[in-house]
């Protein structure tokens, strides 16, 4: 069970959070995006072997949706894409 840094509550047990998935690019303009781009945005998420930016919902805590970088190989919470843990 990981410790997840909540900006309001500090490090809390992972079991207090709901997983929100990797951060996707901003939602494309549905009127401007091609079918292909729309489907790609919808179905394809970053799946790096290394740091990934992801969201967690502190649902059993303060209710914040927060964003962290986490290394998918080690589960270490890291500083950003370049910081392998």
């Amino acid at each position: 069970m990981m410790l997840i840094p909540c900006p309001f509550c500090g490090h809390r047990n992972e079991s207090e959070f709901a997983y929100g998935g990797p951060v996707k690019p901003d939602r494309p303009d549905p009127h401007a995006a091609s079918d292909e781009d729309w489907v790609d945005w919808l179905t394809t998420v970053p799946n790096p072997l290394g740091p990934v930016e992801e969201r967690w919902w502190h649902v059993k805590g303060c209710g914040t949706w927060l964003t962290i970088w986490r290394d998918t190989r080690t589960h270490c919470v890291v500083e950003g894409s370049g910081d392998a843990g």
Partner: protein
Amino acid sequence: MRDRRLASGGRIDRSRPLAFRFNGKGYRGFSGDTLASALLASNVRLTARSFKYHRPRGIVGSGPEEPATLVELEGCHASANRAATTVRLEDGMAARSVNCWPSPGLDLGAVSQLFAGLIPAGFYYKTFKWPGWRLYEPAIRRAAGLAGAPDAPPPDAPPPDGHFEAVHAHADVLVVGAGPAGLMAALVAGRAGRRVFLADERTEAGGSLLDRRMEIAGRPALEWVAESVAELTSMPNVTHLQDACVWAYREHNFLMVNERSPANPSMLERNWRVRAGKVILATGAIERGLVFPDNDRPGVMLASAAQAYVNRFAVKPGERAVVFANNDSAYAAAADLLASGVDVAAIVDSRDPVPDSARDLAGGIPVKGGSVVIGVRGRRSVKGAAVSKRDGQGASTIDCDLLLHSGGWSPAVHLFSQSRGSLRYDESLATFVPDEAAQACVSVGGASGELSLASALRTGAEAAAMITGTEMPDLPTTTGESYAITPLWRVDAPGAKGRAFLDIQNDVTVDDVHLALREGYENVEHVKRYTTGGMGLDQGKTGNINIIGTIALQKGVPLQDVGTTTFRPPYSPVSFGAIGGIREESVVLPYRHTPVTQWNLDRGAFMYEAGARWRRPGYFLRGDETFQETVNRECRAVRECVGVYDGSPLGKFELKGRDAGRFLDHVYTNLMSTLKPGQCRYGLMLTEDGLILDDGVAMRLGEHRWLVSTSTAHADAVHGHMEELLQTQFPDWSVHVTTVTSQWNNATVCGPRAREVMAALGTDIDLSPEELPFMRFADGHVAGLPARVVRVSFTGELSFEINVAPRHMRDLWEWIMEAGAPSGIEPVGSEASHVLRVEKGFLSLGHEVDGTVDAHDLGMSWIMSKRKADYVGKRSVELRRRGKAVRRELVGLLPADPNDQIPEGAPLTPGGEKRPSEGLVTACVWSVVLDRWVALALLENGKSRHGETVHVRLKNATVAATVGEPVFHDPDGLRMRS
């Protein structure tokens, strides 16, 4: 029976004798004994039979590494597959050997030894194929399995003796192991004021010092241990547990500690989940055996185990011993045995020359350098050791009843490896040692390959001093030996014939490993899986390194290249009870109840799970009604006069803020922001990929205040969906979401006579259709209670949803029943609600929505706003509908025979033939308005097939049915608007 107990010494309490039974016979031991030490003291040598060959086995080790003697405890201590060396002896204990019948002495399974040549590693992959595995499997299953399964208590039996518990703890420093290194580390960290958690798997602190005769600061080492324990006890910042095994090292320095004998006598076991700042691994080292023919006979024992038995338990494990070693540590063991009155006939050392440092320890025992044990005399008990030079010269047999062996020491790197630290092979120690740590931990003492007492104390102190940023303390002087080893992975002298075991528990021999390699199973993981070596209860604590050495020798590669198999949790087996703790479903996931639940139960309502842990009444059985009669009665009440149901579990959220309307327009498919205060609208929410997330009702309470209701089961999902959008996509929008599910309870009065009931209740709200039409709500009082009345309908009848505070709900409910009595009111369960909604063709998420249909398929195109440029899911639904996939659309079905009930989920196939389905019956109910069975179905291109006859395919029959509109009652909705 010969008593092998020494007259004095040991860590046993001779004033507290304990009686126990083993395989049906009575014995005595003392407080402080393990089952193994008490058996040895009683001269019980043959204690087990092996798993595959049923060979006679004795006690090999003195701790959790024990591979041979597994027992099943009976009675109040009931527990399967326990290593006898880890069972703390208690008065009245009864144990029996596993995997033999009737006893290890007369084991009928031993017949399998006759076929031993036929059943090498992996033999079962090559045979038992004809005529089918099913013929052989039952017998194989019975033969395997070790101990008997735990007895199952009858359903709903009260919990047995005692209970389990799981608790959380936090530590600045978690020290694993209370041997010299661990105690030293705990002292330094404790003195520095840190929160220290010290856990050790043995019943008392001291680690290897308990087993040996060592001195610290010029006094017996155990005095230092006692003083250290006393000092730790005096520190309020230190938690010190014995008989507590650290069994898992998980991510983010989260470790599991299994406390096996908590002080509270009603507690069986406790599991500590410890979150540690730093971890000091002082887990010591484990002695491994040597690999020579018949190295599994009863009386063949690890040298360190024999040393532990004489020193810690004051038991002579034999009268005349031969010691076989490739390293120095066995010399100290030999010396201790000699000092305890065991006749040590010889030390057989494979090294040539034997280092002087070792010879100095021998104390007059003859040392045979460059020699090996090539065989063991005696089947059921050792009678002698066959010895020769390594080249086979000078073979002779030395009489003995105890054959001790030591293949060197392996650091207990299990936890370090679980933490994902890497290992490296150390040539000088001939073993794997910790290399790079992956988490905030440090290995000290034997666990890091520091095998002398002085270095154990030093590395323990250093680690704690570094972690706490304090000065190194002055270290006491110690006695202690140097350690040197020349690896001997197997005895291959010419005279060495017979089975040489690598894994005693799973009966894996050198020949098995060679066979695996010969057949191409070359990777260490292949060898493990093909031979099952290291997969027993001991997880290969003594044997794995020898398997790796055997592979390396055979392949001619360094051990580093062979590598280790994965170290998986747990370090030692741990009961599921301790892991689960006191958690029970009923505690962790309590039912949610409304204030009316007890009223329902009092009236014999059949309650069941309604999603999201709510329990709702399914139906109210009355007298000797059948289920169908009950449902029909409740339905008729609603259709013909009036019914009432408790809608409190519906999810409810209040949204406030100037952007709330705009936000609802984004999450609902239909337009919400145009509603005026006092109006409400039924709406649909989609996920971004266009699937239906939920349906519900939005009410505008004021200019910037809304109340949104959701289905019971999806309330949490909707909450998460709204918060995610607001916090991640629209952080600058002013909308605040508050969950008010439990702030509002409601009772819905529905049916043509609902208005009568409302009038009887008394209200200051004008309920006339003009003042409060369908899809409007008003605040006021009902029966004198502050209430909000909403005109929504999930039954198709005139309905008043009366919302009140929970504290008023029970009163409101009873008054409704009273006021409704003259109108024939009935409480309505969810079964009747289901019938009523099917008659109306109203959507049910659990029935018609299954991850493929959209609102158009359901005939709800009107709910997909064309006026809004965008909302969640809009683009995806459009895109999906441009695809070529044939849509399954909602239709009504009338079975040709009105008395034919169609099972829910039955497929529609062309002509009812055995062909891929073209649809699915989603619901089928007895309609009280049509007096026949009616069904809803999803049918390919169903909307354009009205009037067609389709076929439902059952197992041995088909049901013809006519396709029509998915509505069977009041298609224009006049009744609910009345």
